[in-house]
Structures are given as structure tokens and as C-alpha cells.
């Protein structure tokens, strides 16, 4: 159970997965380690691995037990881990996420589940702004749009990202408690905050995060009709960087209409250097986002 410093813990996930855990608390550095190791495992192309499934500070490695079994696989994974003397570069993307804050759909939802929320404040954004020390809604929106969000994990339901702010130190991370009792539904493309994580609801689903806004960008397209979903029905991968952009209702409707007609998202490919980020998070983030 105990962890040696900087060394991952390995365990058996039944007879089908190996579990690799770097840390039990949230820190972006641990997520970078997780993604670096996940990438290195993919590159090593070990026979019998079905899928590498990274999460925030740990991962599951699914294997085909008729080809390789857990103990020899763990030996191989440990060797890869040991050979990683530094955090490798992560090829990733910056993606524009237009959003209508305090939109009518999440507001209606928050109204419906008023009794499940801490003090019944609708829209939830004003509650979140207040407990984070913002004087008004506008300054909260400005702060959120000035902060890029890093995709630490994808899952729960198809394509749902867990997002953590970049370039912000602990006390400045915007946080909120989850609802006292979860809602039975949440509109798709709603964006919520629970703890320090933002999440985008991919499909109409139960949920307990405070509702802030609705984005125009679908993150799951089961029919794979939109051009950005041709290869995969899921848009986001761990490591993707989301840039929020506050738009008014007219712009929201116009962008949404365009997306339905197949208009591509604004995406820029970048190479992320975890070590450079960790040295100077704020400055590195600013430079990375320059011109986007």
C-alpha cells in the first residue's frame, strides 16, 4: 500500500487490467507523469495490450490474458517507468470552446433542482462567483475565460472530460461544492464545476456539478456526422487544452447553427512541455496560448 517516493504502485484490476498509480492526490504534475507513461507504453507496442486507459493520477492497462498475464506485464511496465528520466513532451491541441454563460437551458435545469443545491441560488454561476470571492458575474466570467483548462481525464460517460485550470496556483483555483443531492438530468453540452474540476456533460445525464454555462461544441457524436468526429465519436483526449470564449445569445445561435451544418472547430496543434510548464506555470501557459 505504501508508496516509495516517485515510484508508481502496481495492482491487479481483476484478471483483465493492471493498475498503475502515481499519487492519491490531485496535482497536474502527477497527471503529466501519468500521460507520459501512457504515451511511452503505447510507443513500446507491447504484445497483448488491449488499451491504455489513463485517468487523473493513475491508469488501467487492459491486456489480453491469452497473450500476456499481469506479472510479466507489470515487469515490462516497471522497466518503462524506470527508463523515464524526465517527463516527455505531450503532442496536444488547443481548442476554442464558445459558451453562453448563465444560459437559459442550464438555468432552467438549476431551477428544477433548486432544492438539491446548497442555498437554492439560480443561476448557479452567481453562487460560484460569490464563494470564490468575485464581486460580480462579469469578473468571474473574465477570470474563467482567461484560464485555459487542461483535460486530465476522459470518461464516466462517452467523451466527458475532467478539466483542471492551467497556470493557476492552489488558492486561486476556482472551486465549488457538488450539489447536496445529484440532479436526475443535465442538458447535454452543459458545463459544470465540482471541486476543482470543470466537466462537460456529453449526453443528457444525472449530475451534481454546479452549472455555469452551455457550450456550442458537442464532445460526443455517436453518429459521427460532424467532420471533427470522423475518426472517433469522441472529441477530447487527455492533454487537450480548452479555451473558453464567452459569447452572447446571437453569436451562440449562429455558431451552433454552423456546427450543425458541419463547420469545423477552431483547433491548433501544439507540443506541450510538462517540465517547462512546472518551472513557471503561469508564464509558460501564457506563452503557449499566445495568439490563439
Amino acid at each position, binding site marked *: 500500500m505504501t508508496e516509495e517516493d516517485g515510484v508508481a504502485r502496481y495492482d*491487479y484490476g481483476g484478471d483483465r487490467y493492471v493498475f498503475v498509480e502515481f499519487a492519491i492526490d490531485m496535482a497536474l504534475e502527477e497527471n503529466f507523469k501519468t500521460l507520459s507513461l501512457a504515451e511511452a507504453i503505447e510507443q513500446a507496442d507491447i504484445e497483448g495490450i488491449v488499451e491504455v486507459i489513463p485517468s487523473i*493520477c493513475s491508469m488501467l492497462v487492459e491486456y489480453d490474458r491469452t497473450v500476456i498475464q499481469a506479472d510479466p506485464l507489470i515487469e515490462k511496465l516497471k522497466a518503462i517507468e524506470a527508463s523515464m528520466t524526465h517527463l516527455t513532451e505531450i503532442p496536444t491541441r488547443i481548442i476554442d470552446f464558445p459558451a453562453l454563460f448563465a444560459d437559459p437551458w442550464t438555468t432552467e435545469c438549476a431551477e428544477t433542482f433548486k432544492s438539491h443545491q446548497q442555498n437554492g441560488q439560480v443561476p448557479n454561476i452567481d453562487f460560484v462567483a460569490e464563494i470564490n470571492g468575485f464581486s460580480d458575474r462579469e469578473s468571474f466570467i473574465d477570470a474563467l475565460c482567461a484560464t485555459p483548462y487542461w483535460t486530465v481525464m476522459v*470518461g464516466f460517460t462517452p467523451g466527458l472530460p475532467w478539466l483542471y485550470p492551467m497556470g493557476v496556483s492552489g488558492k486561486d483555483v476556482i472551486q465549488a461544492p457538488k450539489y447536496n443531492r445529484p440532479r436526475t438530468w443535465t442538458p447535454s453540452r452543459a458545463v459544470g464545476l465540482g471541486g476543482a474540476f470543470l466537466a462537460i456533460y456529453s449526453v443528457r445525464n444525472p449530475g451534481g456539478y454546479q452549472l455555469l454555462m452551455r457550450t456550442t461544441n458537442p464532445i460526443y457524436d455517436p453518429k459521427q456526422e460532424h467532420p471533427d468526429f470522423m475518426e472517433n465519436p469522441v472529441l477530447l483526449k487527455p492533454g487537450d487544452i480548452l479555451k473558453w470564449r464567452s459569447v452572447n445569445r446571437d453569436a451562440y445561435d449562429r455558431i451552433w447553427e454552423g456546427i450543425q451544418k458541419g463547420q469545423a472547430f477552431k483547433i491548433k496543434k501544439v507540443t506541450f512541455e510538462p517540465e517547462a510548464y512546472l518551472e513557471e506555470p503561469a508564464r509558460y501557459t501564457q506563452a503557449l496560448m499566445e495568439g490563439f
Partner: protein
Amino acid sequence: MLEIAQHGLEAAVQDVYGRPGYYSYGIPPSGAQDGLSLGLGNLLVGNDKNEAGLEITLLGPQIRFTEDHVVALTGADLSAKVNDAVAPRWEAFGVKRGDLLTFGRIQSGCRVYLAVAGGIDVPEVLGSKATYARGEIGGHEGRVLQKGDALRIGTSGAETGDLIGRRLKSALVPAFTNAWELRVVIGLEDYVYTKKGIQTFLEADWIVSSKIDRVGYRYQGPELECVEREPPHGAGSDPTNVVDSGYPVGSIHTTGTGVEPILLPNDAVSGGGYATIGTVISADLDRVGQSKTGDHTRFKGVDVEEGYRAWAEREKLMTEASLA
């Protein structure tokens, strides 16, 4: 062709092995919850082992055959009839154009599988015909079947006469019960429980609750004692909260101070913030799929090697050597 003349509780197209490889995107494997029974059904009607059939849960639909087919019913006993005659189980038999397949009282198990020679002809999505209804992909239009749906049947390479009457050796027919034993590899985040908590988990007589579906099976029983600890940053405030991590298919979690363990079968959510106490070995997920509300369940701690042995035995059952 099969026509759904009346829909039941939940019937959907499933294959045996589902859709591996997309779990990191939050898309679970899906596939039959009792894959062994569907695989044996495919064996009886001469299909490829992983061919798609219908998974029918508790309350069966009415199915009209619009052509002659060779079919097999495996898994649960839901008192199936073709027209007015009792339908055979675990044996390939012929149906004629216009025949109506109906179901009645549950005699044993929870899910019955209908395998049809030639298989259910639906498109593969991400490499599988399995339905994942929550994510609206696979199977028939990404959903469970409704009244009026018509399903095409693929072409079978086998001669009808060679198939009819194919049966399993009677000793190999899976036995269903109301008291199940599930073998579990304890691990991942079992450290949130005390030794006594783990012991309680392994010794209790759990009752399958009314909250059971393809995403989660909940069990009722005693509370599990948790270690007193300060939850780590980002985890949440409950002692069973962890920083969100991956959930193995078959993993078991408790929600809220160790109450009501939830087991995640084939349509599992891929990750979340509740500690994993352990994971049911893959071969025993077939048993989970046949357990139903009110049944008893015990969790038995085993090592991973037992999981491999059980899986190899399961796979070996789905071969010609099992035929009578």
C-alpha cells in the same frame, strides 16, 4: 427477418465480446452480460462464437419470424413458447415463417439469449454489433428494441438439417441458482477500508437490490468499516472518495461511507471518484448477468491466477467438443 410484435422490459442486440479498445474515451465494451450463454447459443446454431444475438431481460418481448430459421434459446428460463408449444432450451430448433415466440414466467436466471443461424445483421460500430444504449451506439439504431422493429438475419453457411437438434452435453449446461458466488480479486483502493471492513465484505450474505441494470448492480447488506482519514486534495469529503480513477469492468465500489456496494458490469462507467474494493473475475460476470433482484450473493476472495483458469475453462466450453 425477426419482427418485434410486442416489446418486453429490455431486449437488445448483443455479441459476446463487445467493443474493446474505447474505454479510455468513456465507451464501455458492452456485449452480452452472460456472454457464455450467448456464445453457446451461437455454437448450437453454427454461428461464429462472437456473432450477435438478442439479449432478453426478465420480461420477454413477442417475436414474429417472417421466414424459416434455425434458432436456439440459452441462458435464463423465461418459459418460452413457440406458438402454443414449449420451446426447447440449449438446443437448436427450427421455426417457420409466421411463428410467434413468446415468454412467460421466470423459472431461473435473469437473461435469455436468442441465437439465430446466420446472426443478427446489424452494422458494426467501432468493431462490434453490441448495443450501448446509454451512448446511443451499436445494435439496432443504438437502442433497445421497440415494438415494430424488424431485424435482418445474416446468411448461414450451414445446412438447416445439420443444425436442428444440436444440443449441449447435459453436464455442461450452465446451472442457475438464487444464491451466487462471485470470485473477486481484492485490490486497487481497498486501503480505504479497514481489515474488518474487507472481512465483512467477504463474509456477508448480500442481497441483489432492485437497482440492477447493465451499468450497475447494487447489493444490500452490512456497512463496511472504512479507515478514518483525511481525504486527499481533489477527492471529496466521503471516506470512500478517491481522486477520480479508472473503474475496471467488474469492479465493486461503495458509495457514501461504505453503504450499498455497486458492481459495474459490461456497460460500466469508465471512471469516477469512489474507491474500488476489488474486481470480479471476468468469467464470473456471466453469473452476475443471470442474478436478479432478491437473489443472494457472496463475494469470495481469489488470486488473479484463478481468474485466468476460470476464463480458459469458459472459453473452452464454447467449442464443438461441448456438443452432445
